[in-house]
């Protein structure tokens, strides 16, 4: 198991490194990163000063070395607008996004497992049809439109929920509901497919031939095997959740990393943009490692390879 985790982590690490390098070169591809950092109306002198201060006229290799060195010490530049270290700003916003994503994923998984299993038990039955419709709609709906329609309906017209902002749990209801839609739709399909496969498998026949109770057949035999496929998809969804979080945070005004990034774009605060990307990439990397561990714990064949 150790070698499996190590190998997968190495792969993720390479991806992470690749991304960081890409970010570095991306900023310099247009020639002069100064233009990215400073507002459009900055004077020529201000640009000269800036360039010299941050060493953007040094050779590329030197810059890269400095970049890596800074990364190592946790210095991701300084946010122009907020006059604070970019890393600090990003880390402040992180918990909100993590909470949003975490609760959403947990709910999506739990609901998908229940509904997907019920749908798989009687393929073609009522539950199955409902599940198919839900997942189809979930996969087709633009999240920003759902968010807006939700606001129109529940906040403006019915006045049940607040339109935006963060605060006590009621403010979280709509953002989480909107963020749920896509991953839930997809996971329901995956759970359903995996459970149908598991329930028609040979080892389930054996379990029934042994006289095992039906609940045990579903939740001990079939579900455990299905979880492997589900976890793989769920971890891919993590990247998608961040996408969704950007939209949801922007529409509902949640002070998370997504909104931070969009605001940074509008305000042309490149240090913040860069820091957001790097921190997000590291978070995803950590998530992947957790998923690999979970995977290895669930499947003994991987442990003994």
């Amino acid at each position, binding site marked *: 198991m150790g070698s499996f985790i190590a190998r997968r982590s190495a792969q993720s690490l390479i991806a992470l490194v690749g991304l960081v390098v890409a970010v570095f070169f991306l900023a310099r591809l247009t020639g002069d990163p100064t233009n990215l950092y400073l507002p459009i109306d900055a004077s020529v002198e201000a640009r000269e000063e800036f360039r010299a201060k941050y060493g953007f006229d040094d050779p590329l290799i030197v810059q890269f070395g400095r970049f890596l060195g800074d990364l190592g010490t946790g210095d991701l530049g300084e946010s122009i607008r907020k006059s604070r270290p970019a890393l600090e700003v990003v880390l402040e916003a992180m918990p909100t996004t993590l909470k949003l994503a975490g609760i959403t994923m947990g709910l999506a998984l739990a609901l998908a497992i229940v509904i997907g299993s019920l749908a798989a038990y009687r393929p073609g039955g009522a539950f199955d049809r409902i599940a198919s419709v839900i997942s189809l709609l979930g996969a087709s709906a633009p999240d920003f439109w759902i968010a807006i329609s939700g606001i*129109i309906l529940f906040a403006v017209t019915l006045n049940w929920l607040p339109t935006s902002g963060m605060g006590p749990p009621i403010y979280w209801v709509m953002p989480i509901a909107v963020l749920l839609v896509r991953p839930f739709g997809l996971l329901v399909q995956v759970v359903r497919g995996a459970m149908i496969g598991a329930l028609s498998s040979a080892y389930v026949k054996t379990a029934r031939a042994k006289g095992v109770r039906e609940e045990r057949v579903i939740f001990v035999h079939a579900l455990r095997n299905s979880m492997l496929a589900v976890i793989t998809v769920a971890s891919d969804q993590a990247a*998608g959740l961040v996408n969704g979080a950007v939209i949801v945070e922007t529409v509902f005004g949640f002070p998370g990393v997504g909104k931070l990034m969009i605001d940074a774009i509008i305000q042309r605060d490149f240090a913040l943009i860069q820091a957001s990307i790097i921190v997000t990439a590291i978070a995803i990397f950590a998530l992947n490692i957790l998923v690999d561990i979970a995977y290895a714990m669930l499947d003994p064949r991987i442990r003994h390879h």
Partner: protein
Amino acid sequence: MAIAERPAAPIPEPRGVLASALAMLWRDKLACIAAVYLLLIALCAIFGPALLGNVGTGLNLQMRNAPPGSIEQGWTFIFGADALGRPILPRIVIAAQNTLGVATAAVLTSMIIGGLLGLIAGYSGGWLAVVIMRFADIVMSFPSLLLAVVVLYVFEPRVANLVLVLAITRMPVYIRTTRAEVLEIRERMYVSAARVLGASTGRILARHIAPLVVPTLITVATLDFAFVMLAESALSFLGIGIQPPEVTWGLMVAQGRNYLSSAWWLAFFPGLAIMLTTLALNLLSGWVRLATDPEQRWRLEIKKRRHA
């Protein structure tokens, strides 16, 4: 010599490809509706701006934020009008061109290039395959929206850049799918049989591998089209995609965001258009998957029986 085996299944009358495709489409009613809807949208995309250009862009401050159903000024105002008095329905039709155009360009690019890269990675192996797969991993492991956002920030949101960015962020899906298929097919016995016959690599790729890979690519592309549309809409919504005065459905939703309490129809109808189109694409992709597989095709060719 007697052949004591059961006779093969009866073969239907040979038909033209188009005729049999239409027949199979008719069997799956939902997919049929989806196909008709998509055809309609495609027509809007191609002919919309030419036919309705003036109607959709002309300012009419009298009809500012007119609610849906106010057809006194003409049938075009059936969905209402926006803040500048422009009727919503024709604008949706016009915006179809940009929305679908960008998505089509992006999907074609990533499908062709991604498919080729996946083919190379799967069949030849070696360091080239490793590089291709690492590239796919890097792009895939990161939220596409953030990537697109950064790239468009650096390179400015022009249409060409938008298409390129969307194509690159979706390419890994094609690369991985193609590579997985090629790896699996490569080991199949009939490929070994062809090698034993002396077939060249080119022949094996063209005759044995590609015919199985292309239908999968098309199925993936159909689904991916929906995804790209949603991504472009999201980017335009956030203000980083297509810029005014060009119009896409996503942009229209963004523009309606300020009027949620007073004129909800500004944001609602364009979003509905996005939703229905992606829904239709998802429905159609399931049909495409069945229709392109000779072993599964019977599901679309034989009437379903009612069971006791």
